[in-house]
Every structure is written in structure tokens, then in C-alpha cells.
């Protein structure tokens, strides 16, 4: 428990209005978007890098845990204060400091909301591509910590591909600068890429230099409906083989299609086994030509219907199915567990079939949808955590889904992160040497284990 003396010090550091330790506030910062919860002792909202450095120095001296937090919408437990201590909310650092259209970069503070940032650069006809589904509420700092993905991942990559440089405060309270704003840089170890995806366990990011790309001139959106999942899966591979990398290549399975139709009634055929939502973008002639190719591939692979949007309104219509996927599924049962196991694209059909078999065997409702183009699907288990018997089956099913992904040469997490939710599988995927190296890096940065402890199995086991 953080002592009264330390509480006074923290209050003094950030100002009383930015220090919270009522039980109500502690509860409000004890959760993220997973089922896990843990109470912090207190919560602070620092306003400057200096305050953050002072807080970490204090934590390191006194030895209390600090868990950084953005919006707290993560899907792997990364922002949950599992050992208590202090939650440090970064949302007051919310300025977009600079947008350079000439040098194609921008500088943002970690509390900036991703969609707000994307909208700001769009005014300059620039694109910040990573678009996680939570982008209207999640923060750039959170995205960096979790290396967030999104629907554009296949063509444009993920957060890590867009981080040029970082400013971060170490657990000792020192301010570290990594990377450079130039297009290329090979000066020393690539500490920028080490910090991206480190889930707030190595340093607290306080400034982010992001790469931008020109906004594509034109976009084509298509929806293809299939009577057979294998046809859809083959289409995904065939599109890539035809030389087209679409900006978006999303998949919805039979369970998801029916959930969407139950809830939104948009006229999707209920017998459909799969839907692909595809977008091409770029110069107008290129986007159009690629779209033609995509549609031809869909037809060759027995797509039953293909619709192409003729304008913005029609585009919105086509997108309804994908946009409504999670909310439609979430209405089926009270507890929604959104998973993230990712496989190589060529193994998507096996993954889809495998998840369906797991669902049948465990008598569960599992909707599968997501980024088929990069193999990152989101098997979503619908259950009720109060039904102990069913929930036990759900947990088993999730374990099997992880095993399935790994056995297909995949990974536990395409974009949500490991945190505490998947920590127990980490060794299985990265092996004992990998885990040992990670632990040594963690110790080098944070010898007193004060920064976001209890995540990713970074503590030494006996």
C-alpha cells in the first residue's frame, strides 16, 4: 500500500485535483476491456514530462508499482494494476505538436486520441494508417504500447511501422530519446522498435514522432458473398497472388453474418458461409484497376454475389456488415470474449474450420470475423461468466484456439498484446531462450520491477 507520506508527495507533484484515491476512483481505474480487474492504491493524472519523471523516480526509490494507462480500452490486461500501486493516466498529455507535410511526420503526445490525430493529418491530405477498431477512444500512447493494428494492416502495416522516434521516461526517471525523424536511421540499437509493443513495461512514452503517408486519392469498396468458407479463403490468397494488396480485406463467418442479420436486418443471406469486404485505394486508375482484378478473382472463386459501392452512401451501406459485427455478436450473450489468434494467410481456412470445430465440441457460440488478409481473425466467444459450467468450457475453448493458432504456425496475438491475459502462453510461443532474453531486457530497464509489473511473465519463476 502506498504510504500517506508518499500520497502527500504525489499530491504535491501533480496538484491535488489530479490525484485520486477515493474507493470510487480506484474502482474506476481497476479494469480495461477484459474480464480482469485489480484495484490500484491511487491514480494520478500528470500534466508534464517533468512530473512523470519525478513520479517514476519516487516509485523507484520507494518501490511502489506504476501502471501507465491511456483510455483503458486494451484487450489484454496491459493497463490493469495487478499488484496495486499507482495508475498513471497519460491523457492530459494530449497535444498534437507538429504536422510536417514536407517531411511526412507528425509529433504527438501519448494522450492524443488516434482518430482525432488521423482527422487532423487528413486535413493536410495525409494519412496515418493504423486504424484499430477502438480508435475513437484509444490513445496514441496505448497504440504504441500495444503495437495496435487495425483494418489497414495488410497493405499499410501496423503502429510499429509508423513510429520514427520516441521520448520516454525510464523507471529511474530519466528522459530517453530514441530514433530519428529522418526516413532512415541506423544509429545504435533500435530502441524505438523495442519500446513499441513493450506494453508499458520498459518506459513511459511521453512523445511520439509518427510517419505519415500521402492520403490515397481514391477508394473502391466491394462486398463478396460466398456459399463456402474455403472459396472465400481461397479468394483471399488468390487476390494476393494476382498482385493486388488491398487496403482492407475483412472476413465474416456464418455465425457473425447471422448475428448481424438478427440485429441490423440489412438483407444479408443467412445461408452465406462467408462474406469478404474488400477495399482498394491509391491513384484513381490504380484503385479502379485493382478493384476489377479483385472482383474477377472473387468470381473465379465462386463468389455468389459481388457488390461494388458507387458512392460514399453505398460504401457506408456495404460497411454496415463489418462495422456491426462486434456489436451484433455482443448482443447474443452477456459476456463477450474477443480473441486475436493470428495465422499465416494460407492457413486461414484451417483456422476458420478449426474454430468452428472447437465451438461445436464445446457447445459454444463463437463468431469469427476479422482481417483475413493478414490472417488476424477475431474468434469471439459469447457466453455468460456467471454460468460457471459454460464459462469453464469457454476457457478451455480459448486455450484450444491458442493451441490451434500456434500449431498452424501462427501467433497468440496479432494486435491485442499479451499483458496478463495471455502471459501463460508466452513461453510456448517464444520459447525459454526468448523469454529469458526478454526478462534480462526488463531487468536492465527496470531492476526494481516497478513499471507495470506482473505482465508478460517477465518476473523470474523460481
Amino acid at each position, binding site marked *: 500500500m502506498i504510504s500517506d507520506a508518499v500520497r502527500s508527495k504525489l499530491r504535491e507533484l501533480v496538484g491535488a485535483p489530479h490525484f*485520486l484515491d*477515493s*474507493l*470510487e*476512483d480506484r*474502482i*474506476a*481505474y481497476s*479494469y*480495461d*476491456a*477484459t474480464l480482469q480487474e485489480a484495484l490500484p492504491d491511487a491514480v494520478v*493524472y500528470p500534466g508534464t514530462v517533468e512530473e512523470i519523471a519525478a513520479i517514476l523516480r519516487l516509485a523507484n526509490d520507494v518501490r511502489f508499482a506504476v501502471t501507465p494507462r491511456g*483510455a*483503458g*480500452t486494451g484487450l489484454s490486461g496491459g493497463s490493469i494494476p495487478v499488484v496495486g500501486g499507482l495508475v498513471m*493516466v497519460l*491523457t*492530459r498529455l494530449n497535444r498534437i505538436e507538429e504536422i510536417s507535410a514536407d517531411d511526412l511526420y507528425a509529433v504527438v503526445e501519448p494522450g492524443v486520441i488516434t482518430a482525432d490525430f488521423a482527422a487532423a493529418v487528413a486535413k493536410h491530405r495525409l494519412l496515418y494508417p493504423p486504424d484499430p477498431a*477502438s480508435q*475513437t*477512444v*484509444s490513445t496514441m500512447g496505448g497504440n504504441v504500447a500495444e503495437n495496435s493494428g487495425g483494418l489497414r494492416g495488410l497493405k499499410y502495416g501496423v503502429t510499429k511501422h509508423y513510429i520514427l522516434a520516441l521520448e520516454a521516461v525510464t523507471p529511474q526517471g530519466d528522459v530517453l530519446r530514441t530514433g530519428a525523424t529522418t526516413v532512415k536511421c541506423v544509429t545504435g540499437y533500435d530502441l524505438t522498435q523495442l519500446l513499441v509493443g513493450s506494453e508499458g513495461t520498459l518506459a513511459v512514452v511521453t512523445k511520439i514522432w509518427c510517419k505519415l503517408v500521402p492520403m490515397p486519392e481514391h477508394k473502391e469498396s466491394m462486398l463478396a458473398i460466398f456459399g463456402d468458407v474455403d472459396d472465400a479463403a481461397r479468394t483471399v490468397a488468390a487476390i494476393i497472388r494476382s498482385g493486388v494488396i488491398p487496403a482492407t480485406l475483412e472476413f465474416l463467418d456464418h455465425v457473425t453474418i447471422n448475428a448481424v442479420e438478427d440485429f441490423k436486418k440489412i438483407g444479408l443471406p443467412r445461408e452465406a458461409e462467408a462474406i469478404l469486404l474488400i477495399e482498394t485505394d491509391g491513384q484513381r486508375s490504380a484503385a479502379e484497376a485493382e478493384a476489377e482484378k479483385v472482383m474477377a478473382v472473387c468470381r473465379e472463386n465462386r463468389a455468389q454475389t459481388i457488390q461494388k459501392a458507387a458512392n460514399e452512401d453505398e460504401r457506408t451501406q456495404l460497411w454496415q456488415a463489418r462495422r456491426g459485427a*462486434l*456489436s451484433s455478436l*455482443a*448482443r447474443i450473450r*452477456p*459476456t*463477450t470474449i474477443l480473441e486475436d489468434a493470428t495465422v499465416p494467410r494460407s492457413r486461414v481456412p484451417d483456422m476458420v474450420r478449426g474454430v468452428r470445430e472447437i465451438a461445436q465440441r464445446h457447445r459454444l457460440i463463437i463468431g469469427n470475423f476479422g482481417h483475413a488478409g493478414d490472417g488476424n481473425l477475431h474468434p469471439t466467444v459469447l457466453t455468460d461468466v*456467471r454460468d460457471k459450467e459454460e464459462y469453464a468450457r469457454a476457457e478451455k475453448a480459448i486455450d484450444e484456439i491458442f493451441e490451434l493458432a500456434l500449431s498452424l504456425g501462427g501467433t497468440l496475438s496479432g494486435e491485442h498484446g499479451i499483458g496478463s491475459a495471455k502471459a501463460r502462453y508466452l513461453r510456448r510461443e517464444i520459447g525459454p531462450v526468448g523469454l529469458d532474453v526478454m526478462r534480462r531486457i526488463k531487468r536492465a530497464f527496470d531492476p526494481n520491477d516497478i513499471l507495470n509489473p506482473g505482465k508478460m511473465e517477465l518476473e523470474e519463476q523460481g
Partner: protein
Amino acid sequence: MSNSSFILHPSSLEEIFRCMKCGNCREVCPVFLETGREGMVARGRVQLLKAMLENRLDLSDGLRDRIYACLNCNACHVTCPCGIEVDELIHASRVAMLRAGKPLPDGHKLLRERILGEQNPFGQKQSERGAWLPEKYRKPRPSPVVLHAGCAISYANNRVGKMVLAILESAGADFMMMGDEEQCCGDPILRMGDVAGAEAQRRRTVEAYRKWGVETIVTGCAGCLKMFKRYYTGQLEKLSDMSDPSDSSEPSDSLDASDLSVSYRTHDFRVLHTLEWFAQLIAEGRLTPKQTLAKRIAYLDGCDIGRHSGVYDAPRQVLRAIPAVQLIEFPAHHESSRCCGGPLMASDPAMAASIASKRVREALDAGAEMIAVACPTCFINLKEGANRLGVRMDIQDVTALLHRSLR
């Protein structure tokens, strides 16, 4: 304070349970966007209620204050992937808190006394309610249509009320008014969680309207509209179910115990906003706007008339009928419209003005010269917002714009 005395309807418990903590509500909650505090957004409030139900938190003042700080705008519900009925849950929680013996926050007590007493929130006399009305409307008479003025128009803004009368009369519309006998619809009472008081208001009003043969209720007050459409028609049945007939705010007069089979709880009044009636009259050619108004006007979908009552088209139809009006949309409009912050005017005027200033900023950025509203609360609070922003922005009631163009 014992948690076991806090009793929610089972369907409300289920709503709490369904929250998947995605945090989408953080995008749209006006109070959260001002404070940045998780305890001041739907997710935080739902999780705090859950903590209390699981005995991890007492029925504390901190919990109560956060539940009462909600604007009831329900923008969170629209963006919630699970479709949680947050507004209903907040209402139910306030009811349950009062029933568990938790005192009302300061400021609400006085409001409650005023409304249950003199039938208005302003501390004025019931006998003065109809003073602004021409003689023919000061007493009820049999009529299928009643025009319900509401407290705001009766006591705070009868200027717009008089325009409503002038417009309806010019179209030859027939209606009666309760005049001095009109009662408060009870919305502020329900909103603070006093469901017994709200039930009493509802019962008296419904019985009075039935007595005079009313089939259609028309009102220019968005809050009353919401109350009549939602609560009076029994849509918030679970709140009514939480009412305890032995509560002291039930009227001891009027109905006997057998009537507590609550025939007043189901009825089929048609409920319209005055703008819906105006739109109809315009379509029928009984009202013809003539004078031009060459302005770029942004219409703000107030929460009570819009999200809560589903009336989005009529105000726009009326505005479009005025020659030369250029109608602009706010960036978030219709079901996604953002609250002006008005419900906090009494308890937190600085916050209310700050939220309103965001709406004014949005209107300015959209190129609007004027903001048109259909709600007395939006009308007042947006002016505060413009002041706070230090800008000139014309705020007008749609009725006033129509009235002007009919002359």
C-alpha cells in the same frame, strides 16, 4: 449505508452485467469529455454500480454524486455495441438509491418540493401558471387535443408560448389548454429518482386529460414531450414497477386502492411536439411561411426531442419551409447529436456552459450563422455557451423563426 436495501429491477441488473467495458462511451459523453475522469462516463458508472452490487463499494456519496452527475443524454447508448439502456439504468439507480434511504444531493430537494407543491421548478405559484394566457385558454374544456404548455413556457419563456398560440390560431387549429390547472409533467421528478412523485404527477395528469376527452397531447417543451412519450405511455414500465404505493408522495386523494391496478399506466394518447403539428399544417397548406430568412442555420437535435422522443424530421421540415433558409447539420446529428449540457445548468453552471461552448464552436466551424433549437433548455444554455466562447452566435427557437416568417 446498506447495499442490500438497494434493489434494482432484474432487467437493470442484466444491463449492468452486459457491459463489456469497451469504453466506446468515452467518445461521446459530454461530461467525460470535459473532465477526462472514468468515473464520469457510462462505463465507469456501470462498473461502480456493479462494484456496489457485488459489495465491493458501499452506497456512498461518491457513487451517488457520480450517478447524479449524468446528463441523461443517452448518447452513450447509441454508441454502445451492447446497446445498454444507460439512461434507463441511471434513472433506475437513482430510484433505487432514494428507496434505499440515500438522501438526494443538495439542490434536488428544493426542486422536488417546488414541483410537487406548486407544480413548477421555479418557485412560483400554481395560481400564476396561466397568467400569460388569453382568457379562453385559462380553463380546460372538452377537446380531443390539449396543448400542454409546460413549466418553462408558462413561467420562464411565454414569449415563445404566445407565438405558438398565434401560429396555431392563424392555421385555424382547434385545441384546449389546462391553463391554471395544468400540472408539471413530472420529468424533473422522475429524473431525480422520485418515481412515486412521478407516478403521482402522471396519474393526476392522465386522469385530467381523460376527463376532458383528450386523445392527442401537443407540447412545445421537449422535456414534457419525452415524459409523455416515454413514461406516460408505459415504456419505462420497470421504473413504474419500482414505485411503492406507500410512499408519502402519492396523493392521498383521488383514486381508491382498486384503481392501483393502474389503469392510468396504459393509455394511447397520441403525443406530438408543436413542431410536428406545424410541419403537418405547413404540408396541408394551412400555414404558409412567406418572409425570407437568408441565413445558414444549424439545427441542434436536442436530446429530449431527438434521441429520447425520436422527433428529428419535423423541426427540419419547418425550417426548410422558410424561404431562403440554408440548413446545416452539426458534425454529430440526429441520433448521434451531442447534448448542449443544459441539464447541468442548475447544479454545475460552469460545466454546462463549457459543454454548450463546444456545440457553438461546432456550429461556427460548420459555417453556421445561427443555431436553431426546439428545446427551452438548449435555448438558454447555448447562449451561455456563446458567452463563454466570447463569440456572437444567434440562438433561436424554431418556433420563433416560423412565427417571424408567417408575418
